[in-house]
Each structure stands twice: as structure tokens, then as C-alpha cells.
């Protein structure tokens, strides 16, 4: 069984991938099978998300059992989780109380986290030249400052046309070149990794 299971897993991965891929090239013949397999994958992904949340609850439940009342964070997390689920079951995902919970707890915290990030990024910009700067560090900082200068009209100064034009040029020419190269590189790497999975060389699912 120890030998059969890994081989069976590889066969399942390769077969399902090939069927989906063939649906792109021969939609008339394999389109239906592709649609069925995609439908199964969507439902399984939903179950995976559900089990992930269940596992999160179990982990924190075990933490509470082992550490007791010392771990107040796990207690707070589980209480908020249970309350949200109970309210959501009765109110629905778009019900009044569900939206109230969402807008009262989730939105302020997420926006505030991003606001803290602004301070952290500014501090990082200050410290950027604190270490031995190299040519790409200086180029990076110069690009950041130019883009910021050209994004908005400066306070008490107003919009500086050359800076705005430079900012536009930076965003539309060199940045696009680099971004296109990055996207192509990512796509090529994705294709290579996918092909490795489809030929059974890579088995990220284990076994």
C-alpha cells in the first residue's frame, strides 16, 4: 500500500490535469469533462476552506485546554468566531447584523492595519540609506521620490509639470518594461511548474 498510494496519487493528478488541459484544445470533446472536473474542484475548495477554519478553531481550543486562562487571545478569538457564526446563521451573509459585525469589527481593524503600514514604510524609507547604499538602492529611492512628487500637487507648491510628466513617463515606459518582464518571467515559471506537476516529477500534494 505504501508503494501503490503514491503512484495512484500521481496518476490522479496527471489524469485530471490532462483532461482539463485537453478541454482547452478540444472543447467539443473534452469541454464537458472539463466543466465537471472544474465543478468538483470548486466544491472541494470550499470544503477545504471550511476545514481550514475548523482546524483554526481546534488549534485554539487545544491552546485553551493546555494553557488555560493564560491564553486570553485564543479565548477572545473563539468567542468572536462563535458569535459571528451564530449571528450569520440567523441573519445570513448579507443580513443587517452580519453587516454590522463586518463593518464594526473587520473593516476598522483592516484599514487601521494598513494605516500603521504607512508609518512603517515611511520609517523604512528613512532607514534605506542608513546602510551601505549601492547604485540600485539610490536608483530605487530616487524613483520613489520622483513618483511621489509627481503623483499629487505638493502642499503650498502645487503641481510641478515636469515632475508630473516625469512621473508619467516612469510609470508608462521603464516601469512597464520591467513589469512586462516580470509578468513574462512569472508566467514562464508557472508553466514550467505546472508541466512538472502534470508529468509527475513534482508532487506538492505529498506522496
Amino acid at each position, binding site marked *: 500500500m505504501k508503494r501503490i498510494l503514491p503512484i495512484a496519487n500521481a496518476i490522479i493528478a496527471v489524469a485530471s490535469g490532462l483532461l482539463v488541459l485537453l478541454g482547452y484544445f478540444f472543447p467539443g470533446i473534452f469541454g464537458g469533462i472539463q466543466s465537471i472536473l472544474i465543478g468538483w474542484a470548486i466544491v472541494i475548495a470550499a470544503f477545504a476552506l471550511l476545514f481550514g477554519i475548523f482546524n483554526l478553531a481546534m488549534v485554539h481550543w487545544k491552546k485553551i485546554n493546555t494553557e488555560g486562562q493564560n491564553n486570553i487571545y485564543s479565548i477572545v478569538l473563539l468567542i468572536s468566531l462563535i458569535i459571528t457564526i451564530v449571528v450569520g446563521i440567523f441573519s445570513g451573509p*448579507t443580513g443587517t447584523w452580519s453587516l454590522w459585525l463586518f*463593518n464594526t469589527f473587520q*473593516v476598522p481593524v483592516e484599514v487601521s492595519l494598513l494605516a500603521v503600514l504607512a*508609518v512603517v514604510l515611511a520609517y523604512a*524609507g528613512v532607514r534605506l*540609506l*542608513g546602510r551601505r547604499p549601492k547604485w540600485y538602492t539610490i536608483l530605487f529611492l530616487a524613483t520613489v521620490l520622483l513618483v511621489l512628487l509627481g503623483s499629487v500637487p*505638493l502642499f*503650498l507648491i502645487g503641481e510641478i509639470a515636469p515632475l508630473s510628466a516625469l512621473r508619467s513617463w516612469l510609470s508608462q515606459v521603464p516601469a512597464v518594461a520591467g513589469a512586462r518582464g516580470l*509578468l513574462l518571467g512569472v508566467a514562464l515559471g508557472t508553466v514550467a511548474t505546472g508541466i512538472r506537476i502534470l508529468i509527475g516529477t513534482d508532487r506538492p500534494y505529498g506522496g
Partner: protein
Amino acid sequence: MTEITCPLCGKPNPPDRDVCQFCEAPLKTSGFIASPDDQDIFTQIPTPSSQPDESTEPGDQPESTSSLEQAIPDWLKQTEASFLQPSEPESEEPAPDHISEEIDSLLNLVPTPSDEQKPAIDDEWLASLLAEAGVGELAQETLAAEPLQEAMEAEETGEPGLTSEELSEEEGLLPPAELEKPEWLSDMEASSTIKLEGGMQPSESLHIEAPAEEKAEKKGAEQVEVPEWVGKTSFGEKPPTPKEPETPIVPAEIPGWLEALRPSREEKVSPSKPVEDISAADIVTAGPLVGLRGVISAHPSAIQARKPPTYSIKLRVTEEQHARVQMMEELLAEEQKPKPLPSKPILTYRHIIRLVVAVLLILPIVWMVVSRSQQGPSPQPSNVPGVVEFAQQVQALPAGAPVLIAFDYEPGFSGEMNPAISTVLTQLASKNAYLSLVTTTPSGPALAESLMKNVSAGALAASSAYSNYTDLGFIPGGTMGLLGLAASPRTVLPYSLDGKDVWASEPLNTISSIADFSAVIVITNDPDTARVWIEQVGPHLQTQDRPLLFITSTQAEPLIRPYYQAAPSQVQGMVAGLAGGLAYGGTVGSPGQNGLWEALSISITVSILIILIGSIVSVVFLTLASNKKKEDEERP
């Protein structure tokens, strides 16, 4: 009955046992266990003086079926045979066990060479024996070596016999015998007398015998009480002559080489002195070699049959080793314990700088928000790429057109993107477009519902909420979900989030694939999500020339721009960030954002100053530090 003492372990055993019940040693030695019929042998023992020349004929072989007979040395057998010749039944027959013990004592006792009288007696007896055996006469001065030779011969034949050491020991043990009786016989009588009393141990017998022998030696000739069966035979008497002349022993034909080995009569074979002086050695007190000196100890404690010692498998650990083991265990336990992190100070240099930066950033914003000043105009659509095309695409939508809107952004970016989203939704609502809301993130439906309510309440200022939309819900699976949505939306989302079959009614009843929507607007802050939408949904839309529009954050705009600037374009319109939203609002005549743009302006200005000044200060400090380091290195 008298118990038999085991010669090996010294423990008492019942008389009827042949082997010891403790150590299983034979209790009755071979060759000396005389059956009742054979006990006449001992009554026929002739004295050596009485028969100097008579040759003893080997009498009838003693009838003994015992296996112990095989252990009897030949010379002794011959001796027995000679004793058997005019056999006269003895009146008394001592008990077999006594006989065996006496035989033991006979074996142990050797005539001492120092006794001149004894050799005189023994020599003749021995000579007669030897003559019978065909060995030849030996000189009287060499007769002291006879026992040694006989012992050696017995050893060669493998028979238990007397070694030279034993012989010499015996010689030392034997008290000076009477002129008529040999010492060994006297000792035998003495030992038998003692053992008859039943209180003697073999180990003790010899000790008792030894002093007895010593006393006898000291006293000289002494009358010793002789057992009856011995007494009947006087050593001074001549051995009984055989009634019938016995056929003489025909000497065997000796091979030439053996003949050559025979010592000549002229040669004086003097007995070699013992290699080792065993006169001071311990006397064996138990076992078959009782009375001998220099014997490898057969003490029960030495060769006592016992179970092999059981060694404990428990490791013997000394105190020092134990202490070292404890130390190692403590070291390993410390390694596994999580070490407490060193307490960090509450305020460090970094905390202070970060606090200063935060204050410098927040204060201008607070001032701008509080003052609500609107100093500058909003950004122009022409200055923001993609806004104009976006507006044109939306303007080109027919009234009531089904539009698919994907809410795939995080709530954290709502502050930046909500102005643009609200403006777009307001414009679409004004065109009475049928909005189908989908999402691939769990927070999408809540964001969509909240925004739709805000749009209905604020932007539209309508008496009733805008209802020309449906929330199709959440699509799990990421890339796979989008592929399924692109191929067949009603299969992936058969019902709306509130459980209605929206595909059965207008206008969605005409929708079979995603390309049937008039436009697809994706709202996302993540460049990867945007890329997946472009890769999976874009090709389907391009077949029908449907626009794919994006409302995105400033952070994702650089990575969506290559798709927007491609030829043919994969993204037909893009509204990015706060600037894009304000610029788009300017195209549709939407009012300003209540100081948002000004707050952003002042915050960016302050940020630039912070970064510039901070960078200059950092470079200065770095330069000073490196110079100081160089000076320190240059110093001797």
C-alpha cells in the same frame, strides 16, 4: 544406617545412594567398591615380608560386574589377583563403604622413603609384584622409586593412580610402620577404626590420620589395632601358596624398540627428586585424593558443582559517573527549554524615530481634516491614464445592460478605492444597468452590500434603494472558480446569495457564458487577482469583444498597465487609486471628496521631506561612522 559423606562436597548422603544428592559426585569410588563376594580379597592381603620371592599368581579375577572395575589400575588388579590365590573366606567381611574408604586410604597412603624399615618390607613385596608383572628386579635402593614408576605407568594408562608427588606425599604421611606391618596398613586400620565409629568426615580423617601418623612416626614401632580382616592375615606369614601350581605368566614378546627402552640392570635408575618440594603443601582433606600433598585443590569450595553465577545486568555506575550523567542531562534539558527572551527596553532609538515619523505624518492630516480646506483642484482625467477609456466604455453601455461586477478587494483598501467604486456604481445605476455582483474573496459580499446601500442612500438620493442588482455570492477555488465562471456562470453559481434562481428570469436568463455580459468590471487591489481575471476571463470576453475594466489600487496599477498597454489591449479601461477615482468623478460630474485629495497632498509632501531629510541624516551618520572606523583601524 551410617550416612555416606560425599568426597566432593562433603555433605552427608543416605547410604543407599550411589551419587551425591547435592553435587551428583559418585559416592562409591570405582574399583574399590568391593561386592560382598569380593571382600575376600582383603582377607588375603599378604605381608610384603612374608613373601619376598614368591610370585603371586594372578588368581581368579575378582568377580565384579561393576563399571568401576574398569577404573582399577592394572597393577592393583594384579595385586588383587595375587591376593585371591589361596582364598580363604574370611570370617568377617567389613561393610562395602568401609571397604571403599579403606581402599581410598590404601590409595592415598604411600610408604615413606625415609623409613628404612619400610623399604625393607615393601621392597620384597614390591619386588614380588614386579616379578610377577615381568618388570624385573629392581635394586632395593631404587625401590623407593617404584611407587613413582607405578604411578607414572598408571598415569600413562590413564588409570587413576598415584603421582610422584602423591607418592612422596604418601611417603611423608606414613608413620614408621612396624617391622611386620606396613605403615599404610596401619593407617588403614586406624582410619577404618575411626570411620566405623561414624563420626568422621573425610576431611577430618586425614587430619586425624596425619597427627596419628606423625605420632606413630615419633613413637616408632607401635602396636596398632588392626581390623579383624586384616589381622587374620599376618604380613609375616607367607602368602598362601596356591594349591595347584598355576601356569606361569608367559612374558609377552617385547618389540625391539621397547626392549631398547628397557633400562639395563647396570643402570641405576635413581628416582629423580621431586621437581617441586611439596612437603610444605597442604594436605587434601576430602575427595578421592585425601591425604596427598600438593594436589590441586578439590575442595568443595573450589570445584563444587554449583550453578553458574548470575551477573547483574544493572550497570555499575560510580558516584563520579553518576554526577557526570546528571550534568549531561541538565545540559540537554536546558537546550530544550525555551530560553526567555531578554527583556527589551520599552523605548529604543527605533521606537522614538518611528514615533516622530508617525506624529509628523498624522498631524498634518489631522489639521487638514479638521480644517476641511479644499485648496487645489482634483486631478484631471487626461493626466491619469485609463480613466478616459474607462469612462467611455461605461458610457457606451446600453440602458439596462447586464454588467458583471467583481468585488475582489480587501476592506483595508476601502478608504482609497471607495470613492472610485461609488462613482462607478452611481453611474451604472443611473443607466439602470443590471448589476450582477460576484466575488472570489470571503469579504466581497459584505463589501458589495455595504456599498450598494451607500450608493442607494447617498449618491442616488432615491426614495427607495436601488434594487436592480443581484448578489451571486462567493466563488471558491480561485483560478479554477474563475475558469468555471467564465465557461458557465449558472453552473458555478446556480442561485443568488439569498437563494433565488436568478437565471430563470430576465435579464440573466439570456446569459450562458461570461461573454454574454455587456461588460465585466473587476474591483481589486491585488495584482495577482487582476492577472488571474485577465488570464481566465479575458480570452472569453475577447471573443465577443466585451470590455474588461478594472478599478484598482495605486499599488496594483504598475502591474496591470502592461495588459492595458498591450496591443491588442487586454484591459480596456482602468481607474487606479484615489487620483483615478477623483479624476473619473470629474468626468461624470461627481462632487469632490471632502478634503481627501488635499489631505493626501499634504501627507505626501511631508513624507517626501521626511524621507529626504532622514536619508541625508542617515548618510551623514554613516559617513561619520565609517570615517571613525577607518581612523580606529589606522591607529596603532
